[in-house]
């Protein structure tokens, strides 16, 4: 039998997203392994996971060797990895964290990532996001769980490179439609 093919929730939106001008670049991020990591707050301070200390400041994220570690709560993080197969990453983390009272759950398909960049990126997000995204208030390394349009999102500031938005897969189509609508005014006629 042929290898099982993967389907991205935003395949049908790819062409429309590509139409957006440089001022608003919206690109789906590739599939990546994501694991929801829980560690009791008391055990999390200074704890390194896969070589990177867990970011314990609320609403921050840290780059790792092949992904990101995002604060989701005082005892909850989202760890992403481009280099490990989802269920193996879960296994590895479960094994590492069990002794400190931690758990790990593969949530790779729970959310998809979108990269939003360009000079109008902040403006487009501000059309549906109530938190202050000004670089003074939301510099690189900051994250927020909030709503964009009517979808719950995890928003990451990438600094000069714009923003990453993680959204529940079932809401991905809605959010893509919303972003296209919000970005439409920057698309030149023709």
């Amino acid at each position: 039998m042929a290898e099982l093919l993967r389907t991205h929730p935003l395949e049908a939106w790819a062409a429309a997203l590509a139409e957006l001008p440089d001022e608003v670049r919206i690109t789906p991020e590739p599939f990546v392994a994501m694991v929801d990591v829980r560690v009791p707050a008391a055990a999390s301070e200074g704890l390194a996971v896969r070589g990177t200390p867990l970011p314990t400041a609320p609403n921050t994220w840290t780059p790792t060797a092949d992904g990101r570690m995002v604060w989701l709560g005082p005892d909850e993080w989202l760890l992403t990895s481009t280099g490990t197969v989802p269920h193996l990453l879960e296994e590895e983390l479960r094994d590492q964290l069990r002794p400190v009272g931690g758990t790990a759950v593969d949530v790779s398909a729970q959310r998809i990532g979108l990269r939003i960049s360009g000079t109008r990126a902040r403006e487009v997000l501000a059309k549906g996001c109530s938190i202050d995204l000004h670089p003074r208030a939301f510099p690189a390394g900051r994250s927020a769980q909030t709503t964009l349009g009517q979808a719950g999102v995890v928003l990451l500031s990438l600094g000069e490179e714009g923003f990453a938005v993680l959204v529940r897969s079932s809401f991905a189509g809605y959010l893509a439609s919303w972003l296209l609508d919000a970005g439409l005014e920057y698309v030149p006629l023709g």
Partner: protein
Amino acid sequence: MQLIACPWCGPREEVEFTYGGQAHVPYPDDPAALSDEQWAHYVFFRDNTKGRFAERWNHSAGCRRWFNAVRDTTSYRFQRVYRVDDPKPVTP
């Protein structure tokens, strides 16, 4: 659109939160030992305070943490927020 200060995430718009009713109403240690009336009080009865009221909130669209707050029910102003494991602040 009021701002509510999540103890973890800071001020966010009120629509990111859900209300959890009166705070400091613990689940009884031994429900079976309670009379029907005592149990009904736990299940159905809550204070309806005019003024400062300790209540539960959840930052449901954010970090999903429960926390407590003292809010003035006449002005809606939050006077303080505190974590669920913090003791109930002294209110008059």
